[in-house]
């Protein structure tokens, strides 16, 4: 059915032909105008995106400068305060970029620690072999970048003793970690060699529970919580900046306390 708004008697199509050039020119003008405003719009959004991106870039440059300041402030011989066993929180606090219900436990029997980069002996390690290294125990304060804290007791070989054993280049800049929960992480060599930097396998005298990094996690007394990867599967010694999960999203890389 025809629309009731359509005229019953249509005008002569030749009228349209007469005015075709005018219509075309109008269209052209509209196109130019439209193109201009569209161009202006892209320039506006472009400007907006550019300025927020350049602010972010500037902030990250200052964050990189803060990494250097923290490196200079870091005293490799200064020990973090330790606490009595009575203050240890059991169990410790779970925190990750996902909920505890999404936890994927690691099979300790088949687990191997892979090695890469500037390391002489890259043969993978088992949990049993890690247990043969000298064990260190420390009761330290865990401080999260969010502001909360708790006292925890961690044991395992020092990262230093491990790196020395495998013949790592201790003059390299970074030690990087890969984990089973896809949480890449990396630290500076000075902190890696600090006496309170452990490859922790125990908490409060017991084998690490699944939520806290079984079978192997990093635990440093001199860095914020997010710098301590859990469920470590590989260690690499490198001079190339490795970044990290939160660091790639803008969190400060050094993260020292």
């Amino acid at each position, binding site marked *: 059915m025809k629309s009731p708004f359509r005229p019953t008697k249509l005008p002569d199509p030749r009228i349209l032909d007469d005015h075709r050039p005018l219509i075309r020119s109008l269209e052209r003008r509209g196109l130019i105008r439209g193109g201009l405003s569209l161009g202006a719009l892209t320039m506006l959004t472009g400007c907006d995106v550019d300025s927020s991106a350049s602010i972010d870039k500037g902030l990250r440059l200052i964050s990189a400068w803060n990494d250097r300041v*923290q490196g200079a402030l870091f005293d490799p011989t*200064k020990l973090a*305060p330790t606490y009595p066993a009575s203050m240890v929180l059991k169990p410790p606090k779970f925190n990750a970029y996902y909920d505890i219900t999404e936890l994927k436990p690691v099979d300790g029997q088949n687990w191997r620690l892979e090695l890469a980069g500037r390391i002489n002996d890259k043969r993978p390690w088992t949990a049993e072999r890690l247990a043969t290294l000298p064990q260190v125990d420390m009761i330290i304060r865990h*401080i999260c970048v969010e502001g909360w804290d708790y006292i925890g007791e961690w044991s395992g070989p020092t990262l230093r003793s491990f790196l020395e054993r495998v013949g790592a280049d201790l003059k390299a800049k970074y030690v990087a970690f890969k984990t089973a929960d896809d949480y890449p992480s990396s630290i500076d060599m000075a902190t890696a060699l600090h006496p309170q930097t452990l490859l922790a396998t125990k908490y409060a005298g017991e084998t690490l529970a699944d939520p806290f990094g079984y079978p192997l996690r990093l635990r440093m007394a001199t860095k914020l919580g997010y710098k301590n990867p859990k469920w470590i599967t590989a260690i690499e010694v490198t001079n190339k900046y490795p970044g990290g999960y*939160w660091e790639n*999203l*803008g969190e400060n890389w050094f993260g020292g306390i």
Partner: protein
Amino acid sequence: MSIDRTEIAPRRLHPLSVRVMHWTNAAAMFIMITSGWGIYDDYVIIPGLHFAQAVRLGSWAVPSLLWHFAGMWLLAVNGLAYLLYGVFTGRLRERMLPIRWRDVLQTVRDTLHLRIEHDDLTVYNAVQKLLYIVVIVAGISQVVTGLLIWKPVQFSTGVALLGGFQAVRLEHFLGMTVIVGFVVVHVALSILVPRTLWAMLSGGPRLPGPAVRPSEGQT
């Protein structure tokens, strides 16, 4: 031959350097307070107290942290420059001292009777002096407690002296509330007496007295 330098370079209430440092500090304070609120919200100190996204700098915690740890340089460097300037030019002593409790009480009484005349901008009343001293001390305290929260292991002695990590965190929060309280009063009064705002932009009235220190010679 000595020249009367007061004719050449009349002293203003707020010399250019003071004005630049004042507005730099205003920007730094804005960055530090609003980004600090963004960081605070991740783990609140007072249950139920959150800061709305509209008043936070940074869309989530990480950008807020980036702003805070960038703004700290602006605040600290500018603040240090201001203190050094204030001490070595004698400005701090000239503006803030002497301060007498009797005068403080009198000014409070006057204010409560809605007598907030401020005819002579070059003389600060006792409450003004007290508030400026409080906010300067709060600013210094924020830098100290901020440094301790940032590096509680490297400065573990300082953290222990101030009562532990969470205590220092609370002190940093309280320092913020003191500064925000000051800003509310400071901005409200500058709006009530707009000449003071204009003075901080243009330099304000000329000051009596020597433009140069006596040791430099004066007719």
